[in-house]
């Protein structure tokens, strides 16, 4: 009998973050193969909706409740999680590859002397050994590497958010919720003084349409065309390739791809983006993709549902005009 599969749920601004439910879908596939339990660790304060974590697939929820767990602090989180994981001895610990997961997981792994693989896009169990097979893009997405942790436990991994849909919610599903009230009385060396919420109207990861620009736009000023069109498309946001972020046409927060954000909107519109794997890794799970590029051989066309070989600078102004006419 192997140890459990554990996911580290995520709480943002007092609510359970959807990545938690995605993690349960990842974890379920593994725990079923290993014939073991799937548990969720949730850290927070005054949280509601813990039963949903069961409904989305957890067999057991360990809810650590304390006022100091209301916001993410790697030191306080580690103080609670390190001894718990050491005693529980899970086989596998998963977290989201978010700013939180990418901080707490390596921090914990450093303390626990545990192997950790970042940003996995696929997870599986090796049949004869029961070991976790962790697959991730490497070297700008040019290759995929499968990695395992052969001789130490737990095997830890972060997975890309929005890389997988949650399981269907089953309100009849049963499970146990254990509330743990930890003593946290040390003085943390990290303290949050203030928080300023982002002002963007629609965040990239939540937008139904993402329109992204690359070097084919030729000039930084043409980025504004994307914003103008985006405004006409409702729940829409503007993305960009790494190339144009690197040359400063648009801020890093707009970067889509391996070293930026991963999105999967209803429609992704790639404008003047050739489609290096670096970029594809961040958008190829979109529900549908439109590509506009002058180069008919551009790799972006390999993932496009609608590929238009042509000059975006001719097409975009007309598209904008037509969209404006529809609004009237």
């Amino acid at each position, binding site marked *: 009998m192997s140890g459990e599969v554990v996911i580290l749920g995520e709480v943002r601004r007092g609510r359970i973050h959807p990545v938690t439910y995605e993690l349960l879908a990842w974890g379920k596939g593994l725990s079923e193969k290993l014939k073991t339990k799937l548990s969720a660790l949730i850290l927070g304060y005054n949280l509601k909706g813990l039963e949903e974590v069961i409904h989305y697939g957890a067999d057991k929820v360990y809810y650590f409740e304390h006022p100091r767990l209301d916001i993410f602090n790697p030191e306080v989180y580690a103080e609670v999680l390190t001894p718990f994981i050491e005693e529980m001895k899970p086989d596998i610990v998963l977290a989201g590859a978010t700013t939180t997961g990418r901080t*707490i*997981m390596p921090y914990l792994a450093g303390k626990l002397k545990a192997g950790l693989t970042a940003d996995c896009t696929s997870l599986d169990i090796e049949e004869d050994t029961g070991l976790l097979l962790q697959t991730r893009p490497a*070297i700008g997405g040019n290759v995929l*590497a499968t990695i395992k942790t052969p001789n130490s436990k737990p095997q830890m991994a972060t997975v890309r958010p929005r890389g997988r849909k949650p399981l269907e919610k089953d309100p009849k599903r049963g499970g146990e919720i254990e509330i743990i009230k930890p003593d946290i009385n040390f003085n943390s060396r990290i303290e*949050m003084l203030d*928080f300023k919420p982002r002002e963007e109207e629609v965040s990239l990861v939540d937008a139904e349409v993402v329109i992204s620009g690359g070097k084919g736009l030729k000039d930084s000023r043409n980025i504004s065309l994307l914003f103008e069109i985006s405004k006409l498309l409702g729940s829409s946001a503007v993305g960009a390739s790494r190339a144009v972020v690197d040359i400063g046409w648009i801020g890093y927060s707009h970067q889509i791809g391996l070293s930026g954000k991963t999105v999967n909107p209803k429609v992704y519109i790639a404008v003047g983006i050739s489609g290096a794997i670096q970029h594809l890794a961040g958008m190829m799970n979109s529900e549908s993709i439109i590509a506009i590029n002058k180069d008919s051989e551009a790799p972006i066309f390999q993932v496009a549902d609608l590929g*238009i*070989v042509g000059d975006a600078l001719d*097409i975009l102004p*007309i598209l904008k005009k037509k969209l404006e006419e529809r609004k009237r």
Partner: protein
Amino acid sequence: MNIYVLVKQVPATDKVKIDEATGTMKREEVEAVINPLDLYAIETALEIKEMYKGDIRITAISMGPLKAEEVLKEAIAMGCDEGILLSDKAFAGADTWATSYTIATLIKRLNHFSLIITGERATDGETGQVGPSLAGQLALPIVTYISKILEINEGYIILERETEEGTEVIKMSLPGVISVTKAIGEPRLPTLKGKIKARNTKIEVFDLERLNVAKEEVGLSGSLTRVVKIFYPKISRVGKKIRSKDPEEAANLIIEFLEERGIL
């Protein structure tokens, strides 16, 4: 105040060759450069040096083959004071745990310090794990995804951290570890004076013996993870491709596509 900046030499292009037997990169066959995201870590250290009222000594630290001395020279040319290179055949093939362990061991052997600064991640491995893992191993506090330094004195640093939801203002006691993003500001270029200084500065090299660490605990043998397979991603989704001579027609096709999916 002593500041350590971690820098890494990475392959310059995306066309990297993999040793299929070990699953590690063949680093000797491509041009190597300083990890572009580490330039922001160096820039942060230099900005702190300018805003701090007192002496600051910045040491750039790297791990890699002897050739990686180049990135430390580059760091000095930008304004760092000195460079230390961890280099030994035994260090090769390290995963993020073994890398952090080797760097942590070095840092324990060095002088007292206030701050360790890293970039967001390296552009080859793209894990971003060494900074937090190092902090975990050294029992130091860490703040990641830093976009701005607001204040620093001998006791603490105040920073802005960017998350998915917004900006956190965080105070961290020193010593500690931070990792910075591109948002920190454009890295400065090396100066002529800096380049001359870099040429005349000897890089300290720590090998296995000088580091005084067991061979089994570093490099591939000290790694907890193993690459078992490398393969090339398959891309599959082939839709309609049209050659648009008429931008009007192209615009209509896009609108039709958006209508079909309920966007318009």
